């Protein structure tokens, strides 16, 4: 939204005071930088000179093993990214539908309301890894001609079910956080219940739940690794294979770095949005 505009002329700031404030800011930045560099150097020296370091380095940060496994783990990681990219939109849609169903009041939708509640209770209660195993091994065991036996598919379905249950609760909290007077105002203008949800309640609710939703995104990015337990060769599984050949743990570190590279931007974005939301609340806006 726009910056606060003032129509009383430009604000007056005492120049002497402003210079003092700036000088202090510069000094603080300098102290922080020097302190950081000193700390990092000290830590590196301490680590490198500790007696066990060469063994640790060889086992976890082996340059040769890194070079060898990086391309393999990276290409396997592409599967994690694909699972995430397909699962996430499905989760958002399914979760929103569940949240809307649970918030509906029409008598004819009663069976759906019960179904949505049972769905959330069940899939929020089952550990995700159990669900992955159950669907990934269980469904192919049915030997049905009508459904796929592809483990990646069933792993993805397990993630979608589990996360939809969580995310629907996030949506529901957002919807319930919109004050009832907003609904009254919309209804009093002649908007139907559906129009009120779509144009008045949901836009406000979704804006409020974006930061917590991003948290769930980050969590999902990591949980794509759970699919490894039913066979598909994604980053974790590839790292496991590489590692078992050489008895070196560097491939795991490679996989870890890839996950971090993917989640850090999202984490920073979530932090930024959270901070902005807090600022807006602080200024009484939004």
């Amino acid at each position, binding site marked *: 939204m*726009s910056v606060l505009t003032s129509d009383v002329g430009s604000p007056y700031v005492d120049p002497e005071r402003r210079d003092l404030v700036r000088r202090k800011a510069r000094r603080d930045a300098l102290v922080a930088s020097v302190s950081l560099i000193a700390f990092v150097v000290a830590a590196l020296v301490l680590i490198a000179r500790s007696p066990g370091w060469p063994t640790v380095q060889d086992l976890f940060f082996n340059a040769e093993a890194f070079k060898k496994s990086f391309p393999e783990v990276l290409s396997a990681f592409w599967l994690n990214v694909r699972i995430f990219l397909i699962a996430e939109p499905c989760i958002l849609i399914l979760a929103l539908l569940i949240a809307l169903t649970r918030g509906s009041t029409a008598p004819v939708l009663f069976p759906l309301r019960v179904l949505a509640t049972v769905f959330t209770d069940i899939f929020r209660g089952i550990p995700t890894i159990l669900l992955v195993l159950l669907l990934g091994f269980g469904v192919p065991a049915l030997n049905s001609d009508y459904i796929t036996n592809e483990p990646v598919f069933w792993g993805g379905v397990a993630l979608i079910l589990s996360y939809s249950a969580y995310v629907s609760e996030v949506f529901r909290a957002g919807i319930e956080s919109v004050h009832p*007077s907003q609904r009254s105002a919309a209804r009093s*203008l*002649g*908007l139907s219940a559906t129009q009120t949800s779509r144009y008045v309640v949901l*836009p406000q609710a979704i804006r409020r739940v974006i930061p917590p939703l991003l948290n769930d995104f980050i969590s999902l990015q990591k949980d794509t690794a759970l699919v490894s337990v039913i066979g598909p060769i994604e980053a974790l599984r590839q790292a496991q294979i590489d590692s078992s050949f050489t008895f070196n743990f560097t491939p795991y570190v490679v996989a870890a770095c890839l996950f971090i590279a993917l989640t850090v931007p999202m984490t920073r974005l979530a932090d930024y949005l959270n901070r902005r939301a807090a600022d807006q609340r602080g200024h*009484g806006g939004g």
Partner: protein
Amino acid sequence: MTSALLHVDSVHKAYGSNPVLRGIDLTVDAHEVVVLVGASGSGKSTLLRCINGLETIDAGRIMLDGVLEVSAPDADLDSVRKRVGIVFQSFNLFPHLSVLDNVTLAPRKVLRVPRAKAEFSARELLSRFGLGDKAESFPDRLSGGQQQRVAIVRALAMDPDLMLFDEITSALDPQLVGEVLDVVRELSESGMTLVMATHEMTFAREVAHRICFLEAGAVLEQGPPEQMFDHPVHDRTREFLTRSRVR
């Protein structure tokens, strides 16, 4: 039925075991300005919310135009609300929409007016009430008085036959009350049918065609302002109006 625009016939309404309206009667003709006065809890707001169908009633009848029964359990409330606008004490603008979108949302989505046409009428209405330069602003950048005027314009944009004002100045700083009352004054002069609950007695006396004094969920006494203020029949009415006027 009568030719009255609004007919409230012995309506009862309770919240749980707490009766708020106890057989209230009220008739409002087209172009009439009726002001509801009475202590807090006398049922003014509840009555307005019932007329708009925001609350269901327990007994009695509310008729619009003598044909449309607002109070029927299966009433088509959306069509009632297209004709009856309400403005609340707490503005209730939509914070995620600009002033222009706040005003055009209902005409576009409910009456299916094309966007360009809805925006043209909205800008005209906004200018008429001194808000022409605020069309693109968001509600949190407006003063309370401006927000309340936008809320009135938003209700007017549906071109209602009847407007309900529920203590629309009670949440405002004293210096902002005047600009909102000016809007009400202009509406009453333009012939809009108004039913308003208010504590602004001077203003009530000035604009009202009729004043209804509510007590304990019923109309105790009603009449033209001069009669109500100067020669009330009931002691309770006299007591309430004199005390309010001193305030």
